[in-house]
């Protein structure tokens, strides 16, 4: 406080000098700010922007990376059946998984919100565990649960007279398995986001709805969902990006098999680019993720800007 009293003393300098000093200070402030963000800018430029542009360049080269082939890699992909299978499987995988994560998360969040506040912490803590375990580690547990000869699930089903299920052996079951594991990992995240959103809905709205005679479904449809629309949208979009670009689950559970039927973009790009060694083709495959990611990113940005303006 004592220093504040000294303010007018410095203010007594001539107006011109002060304006000059102010401009100087502004310039210095800009310089300091720029220096503080410089490591961030360098990191993003070197390891994100440059590789992103470089992959555009790589995608136009031939396998030995000596000759420019233009769109040759893309044309080659369009003529391959496996590529279209990967496109289809990636879309099915991402959309189904996000949908079920959203539904599961919403339902679980509701149940947690329903019980007395005292116990909520404990349940929330338990239900978030799948999200905390590194996906590579939990996928190993699932791989072991799905083991063709020692599957612990099949052991239970056998007691009920249900024959052994080929969890990762059959194409349809393998697709189901990778989606199931993805839902298992991702649903807790939705649950946490929705729970935070549920808590922010003012209770008066429910009271008003109850006075108007709304039943449970009406209250969910006309009060809860509209109030949570923003969070639902942004969580689903985030999840869509992450799920669409997912690598760990498919790689560990099925490695793309049986006969490449469960490959998604990321795992197929890894197979083609790193394991087979055709780097340009691998880069082309992963570039096909860009359109969908861009659309999701635009929607997220719009949402964030809109909320920024409301605040």
């Amino acid at each position, binding site marked *: 406080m004592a220093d504040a009293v000294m303010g007018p003393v410095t203010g007594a300098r001539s107006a011109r000098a002060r304006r000059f000093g102010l401009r100087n200070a502004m310039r210095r402030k800009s310089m300091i700010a720029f220096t503080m963000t410089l490591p961030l800018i360098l990191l993003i430029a070197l390891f994100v922007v440059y*590789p*992103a542009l470089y992959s555009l360049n790589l995608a136009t080269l031939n396998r030995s990376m000596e000759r420019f082939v233009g769109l040759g890699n893309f044309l080659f992909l369009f003529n391959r059946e496996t590529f279209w299978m990967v496109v289809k499987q990636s879309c099915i995988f991402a959309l189904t998984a996000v949908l079920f994560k959203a539904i599961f998360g919403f339902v679980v969040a509701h149940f947690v919100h329903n019980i007395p506040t005292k116990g909520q912490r404990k349940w929330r803590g338990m239900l978030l565990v799948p999200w905390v375990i590194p996906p590579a580690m939990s996928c190993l547990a699932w791989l072991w649960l799905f083991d063709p000869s020692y599957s612990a699930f099949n*052991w239970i089903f056998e007691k009920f007279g249900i024959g052994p299920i080929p969890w990762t052996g059959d194409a349809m079951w393998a697709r189901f398995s990778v989606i199931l594991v993805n839902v298992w990992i991702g649903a807790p995240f939705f649950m946490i986001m929705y729970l935070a959103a549920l808590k922010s809905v003012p209770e008066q709205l429910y009271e008003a709805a109850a006075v108007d005679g709304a039943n449970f479904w009406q209250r969910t449809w006309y009060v809860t969902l509209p109030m949570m629309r923003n969070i639902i949208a942004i969580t689903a979009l985030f999840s869509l990006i992450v799920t669409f670009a997912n690598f760990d689950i498919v790689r560990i559970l099925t490695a793309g098999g049986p006969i490449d039927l469960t490959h998604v973009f990321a795992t197929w790009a890894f197979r083609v680019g790193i394991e087979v060694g055709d780097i340009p083709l691998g880069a082309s495959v992963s570039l096909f993720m860009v359109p969908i990611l861009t659309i999701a990113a635009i929607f997220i940005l719009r949402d964030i800007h809109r909320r920024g303006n409301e605040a």
Partner: protein
Amino acid sequence: MTAITATAGTSASRKPRRGSISRERRWALRWSYFFLTLFAIFFLVPPVYMLITSLKTSAEISAATNPWWVYRPTLGNYIELLSSPQFLTYFRNSAIVSITVVATTMLISVPAAFALSRMRFWGSATLATGVFLTYLIPETLLFIPLFKMFAVFGDATGIQLINRWWVLLLVYPTLTVPFCTWVMIGYFASIPRELDEAALIDGANYRQVLTRVFIPVALPGLIAATIFAFTVSWAQFLYPLAFTTSTDQLVLPVGIITSLIKGDVFNWGQIMTGALLGAAPPLLIYAFLMDYYIAGLTAGATKG
């Protein structure tokens, strides 16, 4: 809670019976607990099964007895793994990489977030949006060009980056820094301006404002960001799988998968033990700092 009270309220308005309110509420509660238990079982089966298998001998696993029960529990798998130099190398690599990346992330993102949230300069708003966009770029888009970049760099300078664990120190920050910066911008922006103006009037410079005012006030956010950075670098699987291959250069997740799964021989007892030990650090952090962990999770979408 409100939802249930409200349902009871509508029926009670017609027939004023006091018993029905509490009875309906009790039933709604019972159903909630019933379904929560079902979900908890679904969510906890894999980690519990990891634990069950990790306590079994190979003989017991291949005997195909009840897989959900341990007849002769043994710590043999744990002792064997924790005394294997290979596994300890993975653990050490993982620990060094994660801790270094956390430190780098904080050193980069905290000053940047401070500058972006408080010191407006030319292009700062664009840069903040750019940081957020970078966070949305998945690693699966960049691993192939990065792989080629490091190979070319190695050929040109003779500094080998591929198949060295420290290449991860360069690439992991791209996964952690954008999110941490974004979250810290949100936390810093919520600090009242009067606080830093008072400090500036008292003669503090920007470094002092950051270290004496902003960091202490935004400490919860800082902890949340640190936890995020640690868990992300500990769990990362694609980059080490693509960039490292020799057994002495691997980090834990890749090490367990590539070295414990030898051909068609799966030693499941050891794999599950390794997986459980690999999951332990994030789980322990979560157990002790749950509130910060959850704050970090929700901050990404709700702050900013």
